């Protein structure tokens, strides 16, 4: 029997039991759609993070205290206090490949104005910070180097702080808010950046001179990090070398002593973020793939029932000349037909869900083309894999017994 005839026979069999075929397809449809949706969310998130990070400045460099933590080794708390004022000053004096520098001290807490309060984070920075992170002051002005020297009680705030404490669109300039009971006079309001792709409100910030935050709020003598910008993105690596040399000298690190700080470029951050995203996506896809496994078992179950039900038909086909191999192929094609049809429907559902439903929930999504090919291939494999046992069961039947079967 040629393959075309076999296909015809299998299509007829699948079509003549529409309800059952559809139900066994359902698992595959859901599984494939889930895989595609997960992949599209993963891919979409990666793309949007990438966009976001690049708008934050692709030449951004971040110096953190402590050795490289990517190995996951826990470090002594004192190791996290290695970035000091002297480091900042030395960088400012010697920098060649670095343009702007801001030491950073952060503190989370409650901010109060009158009867209103909200939770926020205060960032202690230098005035150059706004350029490094590409913040724009919409109203008023940024604080000055002078304010830094005097540890002045001034701050620039994000739109959310204004809305929460003064009401939407209210004039906040000149008003005094309290952060951890320290009064801060608002000198500027930042242009809104909105939510980032992690769902974090980027406008819920207070930026004050680092000296103010260090002395008056956090009461610490070290920085939590130093952010800089390299002259260009291409010179990031050179800038990192330069900074490393300055800091090693300043920290009196000799020979092969390990760095007690870590410098990461934005490019590296992007790579880390996207590999984190990949891991998250992988976990989600594996979970969805398990549903495909279950769906495959469902198909096997239906096919076993179908083979038993059609024992007489199998006996007849054998009696008129079908070999075991041909019978086996017939049922294999049938199960592949079910899984592939389910897969195609699943791809359709998954793509339309990624195109319309996911964005409606405010999530980024972008279906990677290869996920469609892979899904299709996986469905063919599922059909063969889970159709094999039922097909063998059919092929091994004895025609005499099969034809007598009632």
């Amino acid at each position, binding site marked *: *029997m040629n393959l075309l*005839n076999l296909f015809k026979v299998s299509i007829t069999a699948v079509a003549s039991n529409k309800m059952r075929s559809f139900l066994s397809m359902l698992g595959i449809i859901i599984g494939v759609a889930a895989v595609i949706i997960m992949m599209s969310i993963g891919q979409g998130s990666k793309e949007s993070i990438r966009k976001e990070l690049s708008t934050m400045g692709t030449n951004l460099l971040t110096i953190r205290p402590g050795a490289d933590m990517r190995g996951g080794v826990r470090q002594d708390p004192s190791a996290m206090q290695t970035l000091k004022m002297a480091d900042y000053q030395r960088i400012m004096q010697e920098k060649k490949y670095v343009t702007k520098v801001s030491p950073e001290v952060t503190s989370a807490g409650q901010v109060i104005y009158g009867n209103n309060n909200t939770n926020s984070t205060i960032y202690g920075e230098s005035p150059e910070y706004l350029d490094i992170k590409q913040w724009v002051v919409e109203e008023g002005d940024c604080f000055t180097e002078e304010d830094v020297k005097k540890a002045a009680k001034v701050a620039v705030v994000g739109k959310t702080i204004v809305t929460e404490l003064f009401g939407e669109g209210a004039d906040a300039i000149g008003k005094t808010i309290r952060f951890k009971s320290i009064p801060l006079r608002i000198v500027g309001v930042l242009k809104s950046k909105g939510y980032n792709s992690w769902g974090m409100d980027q406008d819920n910030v207070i930026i004050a001179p680092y000296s103010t935050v260090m002395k008056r709020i956090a009461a610490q003598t070290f920085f939590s990090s130093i952010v800089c910008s390299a002259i260009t993105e291409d010179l990031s690596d050179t800038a990192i070398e330069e900074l490393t040399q300055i800091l090693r000298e300043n920290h009196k690190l000799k020979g092969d002593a390990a760095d007690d700080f870590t410098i990461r470029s934005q490019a590296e951050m992007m790579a880390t973020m996207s590999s984190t995203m990949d891991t998250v996506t992988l976990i989600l896809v594996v979970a969805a793939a398990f549903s495909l496994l279950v769906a495959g078992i469902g198909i096997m179950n239906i096919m076993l029932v179908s083979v038993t039900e059609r024992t007489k038909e199998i*006996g*007849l086909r054998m*009696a008129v*000349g*079908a*070999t*075991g191999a041909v019978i086996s192929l017939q049922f294999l094609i049938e199960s592949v037909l079910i899984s592939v049809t389910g897969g195609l429907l699943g791809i359709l559902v998954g793509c339309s869900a990624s195109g319309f439903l996911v964005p409606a929930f405010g999530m980024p999504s972008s279906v990677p083309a290869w996920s469609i090919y892979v899904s299709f291939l996986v469905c063919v494999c599922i059909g063969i894999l889970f159709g094999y046992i039922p097909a063998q069961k059919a092929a091994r039947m004895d*025609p005499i017994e099969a034809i007598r079967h009632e």
Partner: protein
Amino acid sequence: MAEDKRKVVIELRNVKRYFQVGSETVKALRGVSFKIYEGEFVTIQGTSGSGKSTLLNQLGCLDTPTEGEYILDGISVRSMSKNQRAHLRNRKIGFVFQNYNLLAKTTAVENVELPLMYNNKYNAKQRREAAVKALQAVGLGDRLEHKSNQMSGGQMQRVAIARALVNNPAVLLADEATGNLDTRTSFEMLVLFQELYKKGHTIIFVTHNPEIAEYSSRNINLRDGKIREDTINTNIKSAAEALAALPKPQDD
């Protein structure tokens, strides 16, 4: 009949078939030998359990003998593989079963095409032509597109006979082909078999009903897995006449 010049279609030489059931051996066939010539209409008759179906399974290449030799159309079947036997059934054998065994929800012509589906020498057009011809031969030329569930028992058995004829087999094997039919329809079926016999088809018809032996050209009587009698019928009764003599149905 050693000097017989007719072509031998089937030859059995001391065929035995034993079944092992637990510790017991059931001897379904205890040494059966005969030759069947081209164009014979042979009834194999015997009581229930005498070994008729077992014998027919041997003749139809569905089973192989425990002992003995079976030669079909010049080919030794005994040492054949399963696949070779499937091929042989496809080309040389036409089966008619007691309960028709038509594919459900399938038209008459598609049912008849089935054996040719497993024969690569036929394309779709040739298959259809052969099926239509076979259906015309059994008087169902006007029922081609009827589905199996829209037909009477007699019509279904005619479709089954057409299916058995479609591959132009060396021998037509029928197992209790009239077993599920009423008297009148049974005679109609016998008329058809006699017509096929007259056209030169070789027919082996298994039945427990001794009456049917009167309409065939030769009768082999089985008992306990052995041939009790093998007689040539020189006075073949006409099934058509017997049918005409039957009391007419009420609505006729």
